[in-house]
């Protein structure tokens, strides 16, 4: 049946714009006035997501998805034209097997963004609110100073440059690279490598099973650093830090290149132990390894 009435268009003009199939792709274009602390939740099949914090009190999501991929936006908050306080986007995978789409999201800098997908690259810039990012594979890159940053990945790599106040990163095999500062840092990995450099960290806890850990940043005055590893190598780059260091291996070895103090044999003659105080010992570093070696270098 043909629907060509121009008069009908007057009644349809106020309809909400929704994603309309266009060839093999459907265009995504969502624009809303939102509160400065809007909560945005994005879940489903996307291959890349770029999130940018901006100074406007509005949310814009653009991009393209496979034509047969179901895209469901929903909003929360008071009705009657007031800015939206929460938005949710659910993207179902294409049934035809087409590759997942790409999305770009602009939100107020103070927004909280929760994003979850399978294999995806997520890039975030300029958010000072909260971030909760969850992938299986792919990569997550965050630049900026979010108040809270929670990242979970299986084998996707994680790269953070900036100064999150509170951060947790958990991977199975994905590598974790942090450049910057953090007040409360927690990193957990099974076999990914961990590298923490530059800046100053107040409370840090890093756990690895087989992945190597390199800590080359500062530990804040009265701060603490704890690194546990089963077989991964732990390397602590001291620099000019003022630290009390307590290092223990069960069966591995400890190499000290920062002072003349030598490690002593561990309990029952296995492994090694080393206690060291550098500078005024303002902060504390505890390094424990089962069979991975521990290295202290300048």
């Amino acid at each position: 049946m043909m629907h060509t009435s121009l008069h009908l268009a007057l009644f349809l003009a106020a309809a909400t714009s929704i994603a309309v199939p266009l060839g093999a792709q459907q265009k995504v274009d969502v624009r809303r006035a939102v509160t400065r602390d809007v909560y945005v939740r994005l879940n489903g099949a996307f291959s890349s997501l770029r999130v940018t914090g901006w100074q406007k009190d509005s949310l814009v999501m653009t991009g393209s998805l496979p034509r047969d991929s179901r895209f469901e936006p929903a909003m929360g908050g008071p009705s009657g034209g007031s800015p939206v306080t929460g938005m949710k986007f659910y993207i179902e995978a294409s049934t035809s097997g087409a590759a997942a789409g790409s999305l770009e999201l602009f939100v107020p800098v103070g927004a909280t963004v929760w994003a979850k997908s399978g294999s995806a690259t997520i890039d975030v810039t300029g958010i000072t609110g909260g971030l909760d990012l969850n992938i299986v594979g792919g990569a997550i890159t965050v630049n900026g100073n979010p108040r809270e940053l929670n990242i979970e990945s299986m084998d996707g790599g994680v790269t953070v440059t900036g100064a999150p106040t509170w951060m947790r990163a958990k991977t199975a095999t994905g590598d974790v690279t942090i450049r910057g500062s953090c007040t409360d840092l927690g990193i957990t990995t099974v076999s990914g490598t961990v590298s923490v450099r530059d800046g100053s960290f107040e409370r840090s806890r890093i756990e690895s099973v087989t992945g190597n850990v390199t800590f080359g940043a500062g530990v804040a005055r009265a701060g603490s650093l704890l690194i546990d590893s089963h077989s991964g190598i732990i390397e602590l780059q001291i620099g000019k830090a003022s630290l009390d260091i307590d290092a223990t291996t069960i069966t591995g070895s400890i190499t000290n290149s920062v002072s003349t103090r030598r490690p002593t044999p561990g309990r029952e003659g296995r492994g090694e132990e080393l206690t060291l105080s550098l500078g005024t010992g303002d902060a504390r570093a505890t390094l424990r390894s089962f069979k991975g070696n521990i290295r202290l270098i300048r």
Partner: protein
Amino acid sequence: MIDPQLAPTTDDIAALVTLAARGDVSAFERLYTRCAGRVYAVCVRMTGDPQRAREYTHDAFVRAWERLSTFRGEASFETWMHRLTVNVVLTASRGERRRAARFVPTEEEPAAETNLALSAPPDDVETRLDLERAIAALPPRAREVFVLHDVEGYRHEEIADRLELEASSVRAHLHRARRLIMRMLTR
């Protein structure tokens, strides 16, 4: 493929229900043959998702198997299955909405209309959608209301009761759904 020659006649239904209620799976299969198309149609239109529709169709028949002894025969078996299916779909939808942690969508009032200036109507549609696809593309709540009212013939009050909405909200969802569908079908 369901063989229409296996579909039982009305006279057989009561006998089949009795047999199936006693554990006769073959009898239940014939009931399935009779109703599966209707049940699946309701599920796929209310969800807009063939995968979920398949799951809910499965669940509806399993529940029917569990509750065969409660079928009294006041309505036809098809009507009984239809009501049971709608309950399955709506219960699952409510569960999914509750599981959306830290986010509770408001009723889908057409508040977005106030943001018209930011979302221009699409003028580059090349493919005309058929009605089924247009229904599938509706927002979830609007789709449920549209399917129950315009496709399945429920009244506003019945829908309001099933969806736990005010009648005015049901009307709002229905009007919005119709507007969206007509917009999608218009060149």
